[in-house]
């Protein structure tokens, strides 16, 4: 299966070796094509791709601040309407800019129904500022603000269920994706852009620094996240949930966790607790899949 040859994110950008999101950008923009405007929240992506006077973007691109990408995109979309111009508006925000500080603006954009595709590249921490905890950080994970102490070991809460929250806004298209399943990501972007209204995608984006993985293991980590059920691949179209990729048998989460330095402190009890959570969530998704309308649109 081939992706279009044309690139919209050029080589030579200042990403870390092994960074997860250049692959995401390349697949997403290949799916979206030339007639696309990118709105970027503050974060690694904006920092590494636009050191003035250089830019890695061959598409019109705008960045304003950390928490307002969804609001900026709302304004872009409104202006396009009045100019009678039709272009895809795609937002890229990290998990900090999406789950946390940008959450209100995102909720507002979804509620108002702007014709925008919001893509969260989820690396599960504030990696740009030096690996601090976000509400997307997995439970028990090490970050610089959730150190492994004698009293408290890593992050204390489970990851916020952002896709369900977005689906609950009545969005016509919400999905998760992982770049290692590149055609799934490509096709989901195509599908999202064919639907009018506010769309949301969460795409797994490993951070070699924050996750403490070798720079040649990014795709392997993505694969294990999906194969273990830690990061299920599904879509919710007009409220109907479909799991797009079902491993024959889920691999033990331990395999996924032990690949990464951020989890190396975990004891058996903690690993068991994560495994139980993953199993439960997988069953929950299987149950939702049976419904005609897992979410009310």
């Amino acid at each position, binding site marked *: 299966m081939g992706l279009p040859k044309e690139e919209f994110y050029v080589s030579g950008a200042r990403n870390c070796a092994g960074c997860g999101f250049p692959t995401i950008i390349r697949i997403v923009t290949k799916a979206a094509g*030339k*007639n*696309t*405007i990118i*709105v970027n929240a503050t974060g690694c992506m*904006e*920092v590494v791709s*636009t*050191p*003035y*006077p250089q*830019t890695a*973007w*061959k*598409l*019109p*691109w*705008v*960045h*304003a*601040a950390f*928490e*307002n990408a*969804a*609001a*900026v*995109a*709302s*304004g*872009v*979309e*409104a*202006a*396009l*309407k*009045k*100019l009678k*111009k039709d*272009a895809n508006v795609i937002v890229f925000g990290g998990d900090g800019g999406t789950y946390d500080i940008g959450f*209100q*603006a995102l*909720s*507002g954009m979804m*509620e*108002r129904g702007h014709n925008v595709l919001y893509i969260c590249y989820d690396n599960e921490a504030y990696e740009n500022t030096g690996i601090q905890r976000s509400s997307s950080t997995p439970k028990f994970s090490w970050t610089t603000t959730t150190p492994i102490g004698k009293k408290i070991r890593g992050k204390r809460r489970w990851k916020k269920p952002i896709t369900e929250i977005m689906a609950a806004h009545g969005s016509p298209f919400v999905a998760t994706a992982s770049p290692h399943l590149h055609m799934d990501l490509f096709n989901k972007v195509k599908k999202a852009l064919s639907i009018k209204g506010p769309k949301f995608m969460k795409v797994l984006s490993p951070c070699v620094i924050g996750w403490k993985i070798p720079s040649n293991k990014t795709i392997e980590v993505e694969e294990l996240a999906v194969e273990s059920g830690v990061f299920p691949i599904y879509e919710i179209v007009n409220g109907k949930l479909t799991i797009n990729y079902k491993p024959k048998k889920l691999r033990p989460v331990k395999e996924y966790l032990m690949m990464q330095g951020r989890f190396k402190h975990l004891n058996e009890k903690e690993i068991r607790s994560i495994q139980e959570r993953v199993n439960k969530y997988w069953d929950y998704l299987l149950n939702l899949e049976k419904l005609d309308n897992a979410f009310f649109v």
Partner: protein
Amino acid sequence: MVGIKKVEYGKKQVLSTSDAIAYAVRFCEPKVTAVYPITPQTWIAEKITELINNGEMDSELILVESEHSSCSAILGAAATGVRTFSATSSQGLALMNEVLHVLSGMRLPSVFAIASRALSSPINIWADHSDMMNSRDTSWIQLFCESAQEAHDTIIQAYKISEKALLPVFVVVDGYTLSHVYEPVFIETKQKVKSFIGDYKPTHAYLNPKKPMTQGPIGYPSEYMDFKLEQQRAMNKALNVIKETNRKFKIKFGRSYGNGLIDERVRSKRVIIAMGSMCTTLRGLEKKYKKTKYEFSLIKIKSFRPFPKKELLRALSNATDIAVIDRAMSYGNAGPLFIEVSSALGEAGYRKRINNFIVGLGGREARIKDFEFIIKNIGRESYWINVNGGKNISFSAVI
């Protein structure tokens, strides 16, 4: 505001200042309008939405979930390349503060109407310039108005100024004291307004897939400061843009406001400097005390940013005693306008007697007797006026 009163264009009629602003915005035809409700700005937003919903104004309306988002949506629309409008007050303006800097730094034009109001705490919804002073260093042009007519006219001027200077503009009216006042206003016609401001066709900032542009990049230490120098250059140039726009406005519409930057009508050795709606009261007193021992002249600062240093110094060249009235406070020092004027005088090497009066914070009544106290104390001690049960307390006694 509830109830539709038919407005007549090209005619003088009694309207609220908020409506006068909305009717000016209508013919400036911003393609995108984004607003969030906040008192006392709400009348402007309500009138604009009424015009849009009735099909009388052609603008894409975004009713956002916060002022941070209204400013951000405006930024997105302006970056796409269209004319924009928003309005806010007080906490809303404070919440926007982060994005205000970004918008002006990206050199995007826009016009925001501000019904100026106090900042919390304690929470207070009345007239005060604290919200504007809190926005002082955002690189937005700030134009203070004293009447409904001036607000109407300044909105029209503001679009021309903003799109020429490539800096966003605040058009400021005192909350309630002016925003909710009904006055006779001449409402301009569509044809005249449109021919005055023309179309907005940006060549420096747009989002067009046919001609990709990166807007809002990261500026390293090797670049950042040069961007900031350009902003200062733009502000300096804006002084002339404002003056020129005011001059052209006079030719077309027959009205003008001083030289667009400051308004001084007579010159005396004793001077009071003020901004906003209290200038009207002071102008009345200027007449009353003419040729008396308390004779003074009023200098209204219309453009607080850019600060018209040169014009102000020229107006003050023969002054001996100066009083600066502030409707805000820079805690730990003095009123912000006083600090500006003192700095201008100091830099020019002028030695004048100058003092400061802090008046009307949070909508406190500024009574005629308060102004009379000020008039009699120009160039003497500095005071907080009408505090602690009607007293005037000198700065040195605030311990």
